[in-house]
């Protein structure tokens, strides 16, 4: 073999590049890591497996509907799995999925997706005090 000084490093670089997951995961100590989600209380809106792959479409359709038509027909969701009615407020999901960290983030972090939903929408992890309605204004005006 000629040009060993170039070919051997080349092969090593190739191997290192191709097997990046091994050394990367070894450094992160995450071999074979599989996320564990906290089982939410209650029944899911739709079939669980289907939701795993398609929940974003459901949410997107639902939110568009709710924003654009609101009271005029966009807010109620009839599940085809359970047959139940769900009322869309921005917090409906949190009634069962109590923790964002232990549910949503598990999968999303795992596959490296960061939806921008929570840039605006409330999550239970927000630490600021909740506003409780006009009644709390009494301390300013009365």
């Amino acid at each position: 073999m000629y040009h060993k000084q170039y070919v051997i490093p080349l092969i090593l670089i190739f191997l290192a590049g191709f097997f990046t997951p091994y050394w990367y995961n070894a450094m992160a100590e995450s071999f074979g890591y599989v996320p564990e989600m906290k089982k939410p209380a209650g029944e899911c809106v739709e079939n669980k497996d289907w939701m795993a792959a398609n929940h974003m479409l459901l949410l997107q359709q639902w939110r568009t509907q709710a924003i654009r038509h609101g009271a005029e027909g966009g807010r109620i969701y009839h599940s085809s799995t359970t047959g139940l009615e769900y009322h869309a407020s921005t917090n409906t999901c949190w009634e069962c999925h109590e923790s964002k960290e232990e549910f949503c983030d598990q999968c999303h972090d795992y596959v490296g997706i960061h939806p921008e939903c929570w840039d605006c929408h409330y999550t239970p992890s927000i630490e600021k005090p909740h506003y409780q309605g006009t009644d709390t204004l009494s301390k300013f005006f009365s």
Partner: protein
Amino acid sequence: MIGVIFGVIVPYIAVAIFVVGVIYRFINWANSAVPLKIPTTGGQQKSLPFIKRTIYDRFDSPYTWWETVGRMILEIFMFRSLLKNTRYYLDRVSQKDARWLWLFAILFHYSLLLVLIRHSRFFLQPVPEFVEMLSEIEAFKGVFIPSVYVSGLAIVAGLFLLWLRRIFLSRERTLSLPSDHFALILLLAITISGNIMRYFFKADLEKVKELLMNLMVFDVGKAVAIADSIEPIFYVHFVLASFLLAYFPFSKLMHAGGVLFTPTRNMPNDNRARRHVNPWDSDPSVPILAKGITVGGKTFTSKKLDWDTYYSMYTDQLDEIAESDYKIAPEEL
């Protein structure tokens, strides 16, 4: 069952073939000698100090190691040779730059790079931040749900353009072999199936990653369990990709590695400064033909014309020159 075969066995075999194959090709090429230093010089050589040598000449006609590396890098990352492409018109005197091939090639290869980087999220845990950022930038995060990855569409477009070239341009059609079409069709099938899986028939990504993570640590038991529960559409993509991996080292796709070995590009144009030694003719004091070459059991030896032989052949004439003290002057008339 489908999961076991396509989800576990096939990828293992494919990866093994790929890794061994690529290393085999590298070593195979490296086993051949490089008898001569034959860079194709595309610009002014390094020569007298007052001869202007521009930055482009440095990369087109490299003299130092670094310039050569620069040339290779530009070649690999910018396809510089294709960028210089021209077109000849039979019916016109003029020639024009023809950079479409460069454009299509860049479109395809860079999309491929982005796609591969994005796919690394299925293998890396935690997913590196730049991979996430890259995905977000190219997907116009928030516009489409699921996000539309531009590179995923661009790669299909690039492949189609490259393929249409081979189909519709008569010259390219003539010189395309079935294997050329096959490679393009295979890549198209992979990218299109990937896009279909992304936008139309969805598979559960989390399970896919679980499968791959388990395959990586050879936890076959778990992998088999997961593999069976993944949607079939995933296996179309996955098996085709595995096939590409296995096909890669033994096809023209290996140009990806071969470009590093190409002697007309990776050698500096410094023949006059540094001597190149031919490994199978390292002591060239006697020409090979004078030593004799053996073909089919017979040896053919040419007589060597060294000075003594030469002198003995043309003694009288050479002596005549010597008589005039090796000087030639016009004849006195």
